[in-house]
């Protein structure tokens, strides 16, 4: 066993941490308040090769691994969740399906723009009437004269509507009992994108409702064999969970550090509140649980990098860090007292940003269903 990060992973972590502290932290509050998409930051991340970490170099990515990707997402979330989810959804949901299931021609066509961060990718699975039960998706794609004609709608889709969004891969019914994934480029007639949805958190990330009315794309935009959509998106979500779990650890770490700093400075009853056992025990519990959650995430990433089954561990990591980040951010805000309720401290933003980690890419309940299935139940 070896718990040390390799020198590359350690340097990558340090680099992303420095970048996040120096380039993102100063603007995070403003981006959140103004609900402004972080175009400049995305461009800088692209320059550093962080918009395509686990994508091979031959397709314009950085050729990194899942652990390096998870470390990067963790460090971004330690400072700002909106930037982190933009990178995570783009990589795990937007780009991965094309890498995993695309033909050589599709990969050559789409990946260089996506992996280099010139364009953003999105994945449209959720529908107004099909959330946890994603297999119930009603959006249809009918093959007519060598084209897929798409009709239906998707909701809560990340990265679909920015100025640099390139395409969305959607799950659609290609017959009554058949789901397939189809790539729809932004700008295709009949593909309409709503105004940004108003959210409780992740305010600087882009979330949209999509509608398709006789939206026509070439037959060649089908991803992988017809009818494989269900199996494909389950696999995509398995991988995506590692990055959302990394967000849980990063958010908890950031919240914990803020609480620690505040507790050392804030004096009540003649001494720093950190000296009160009730407060120091909270911090001790947070540090302990974060460490446990981090090990789950790294193990899932490591398994994936070894080419071994990782679905159960990824679901466990996602479930555990979702709940963990909820507990930690709650106690971290509590330690801030009334100041924590004011937007002038970042902890309020962290509190608002946390909740969705227990919902997106499978709710806590869905993770338990996945884990139970792995347990043979």
């Amino acid at each position: 066993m070896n718990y040390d990060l390799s020198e590359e992973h350690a340097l990558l972590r340090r680099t992303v941490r420095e970048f996040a502290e120096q380039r993102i932290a100063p603007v995070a509050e403003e981006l959140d308040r103004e609900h402004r998409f972080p175009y400049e930051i995305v461009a800088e991340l692209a320059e550093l090769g962080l918009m395509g970490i686990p994508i091979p170099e031959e397709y314009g990515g950085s050729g990194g691994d899942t652990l390096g990707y998870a470390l990067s997402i963790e460090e971004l979330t330690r400072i700002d969740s909106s930037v982190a989810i933009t990178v995570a959804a783009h990589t795990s949901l937007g780009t991965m399906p094309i890498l995993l299931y695309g033909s050589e021609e599709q990969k050559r066509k789409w990946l260089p723009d996506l992996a280099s961060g010139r364009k953003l990718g999105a994945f449209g699975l959720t529908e107004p009437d099909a959330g946890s039960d994603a297999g119930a998706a009603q959006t249809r794609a009918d093959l007519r004269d060598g084209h897929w004609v798409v009709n239906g709608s998707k909701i809560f889709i990340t990265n679909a509507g920015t100025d640099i969004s390139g395409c969305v891969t959607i799950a659609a019914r290609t017959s009554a009992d058949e789901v397939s994934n189809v790539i729809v480029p932004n700008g295709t007639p009949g593909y309409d994108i709503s105004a940004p949805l108003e959210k409780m958190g992740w305010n600087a990330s882009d979330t949209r409702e999509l509608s398709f009315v006789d939206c026509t794309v070439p037959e060649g935009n089908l991803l992988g064999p017809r009818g494989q959509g269900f199996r494909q998106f389950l696999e995509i979500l398995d991988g995506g969970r590692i990055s959302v779990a990394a967000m849980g650890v990063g958010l908890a770490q950031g919240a914990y550090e803020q609480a620690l700093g505040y507790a050392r400075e804030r004096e009540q009853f003649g001494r720093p509140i950190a000296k009160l056992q009730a407060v120091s025990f909270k911090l001790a519990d947070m540090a302990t649980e974060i460490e446990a959650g981090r090990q789950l995430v790294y193990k899932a990433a490591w398994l994936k990098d070894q080419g071994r089954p990782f679905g159960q561990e990824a679901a466990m990591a996602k479930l555990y860090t979702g709940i963990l980040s909820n507990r930690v951010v709650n106690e971290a805000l509590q330690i801030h007292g009334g100041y924590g309720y004011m937007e002038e401290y970042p902890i309020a933003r962290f509190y608002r940003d946390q909740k969705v980690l227990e919902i997106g890419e499978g709710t806590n309940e869905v993770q338990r269903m996945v884990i139970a299935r792995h347990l043979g139940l």
Partner: protein
Amino acid sequence: MLAPVKVAVCMKEVPAAAAPKRIDPGTKRLDRSVEGALNDFDTHALEEALRLKDSAAETEVVVVSMAPERASESLRKALAMGADRVVLVSDEAAAGSDLVATTAVLAAALERESPDLTLFGQQAGDADGAVLWAAIADRLRLPMISQAASLELQDGKVRSKRQTEFGYDVLEAPLPCVVAVSDAINDPRYPSLKGIMGAKKKPQDVVSLADLGVEPGRAGEAGSRTAVLALAEPPSRGDSRRIEDDGGSAATEILSYLTERKLL
């Protein structure tokens, strides 16, 4: 089109910003066993070298450092940013070097590389001497420009703006020469992920004093000409008064304090 040049960048490892700072009361030296990092000021010098390399691909950028061997981890960042190789002078006998001893060693390492241009940061973030480059230029008998806020290479010359209180001095020196850059000269790049993954393949030569032909008596404590006799906390400011601001009241209070004492 610029002629290809060889640029040496002198970089120091200092305790990382987040690491605890402690002076060992026994040796009276800074405790350097904590996590280290590249001296921030020196990344500006490296960035300037990398810009020369960006505009003329044949430019070679060599990082030169004197430090214990574990500094190679910090120096990897320089390679990830784009430096071609590192020469790390590491020797038990170099421990405890003062200015005289440090420059004896670094000058020998630089002499061996014989670069066209040698760049320094303005100061080391731990000792804050802002002096080493002057001593190196003196030992190597090379022209030197300090506080460079810009740098251009032209026809075998360096042209540089030096920031002063009233504006800029524009200075020119023939190559080879020594330039210490100010931290206003540029924004250093972050290493890219590809750079990070490629850094391992780049050479990091660890050399000893013997490799450089420096006699042990000229380095380390033996070669030092200064000794730290005592260390003391700075005296606390006795009769200072703290003024808390309350909706702008502080300015008025400071003003009346100064006028009362006829200081305005």
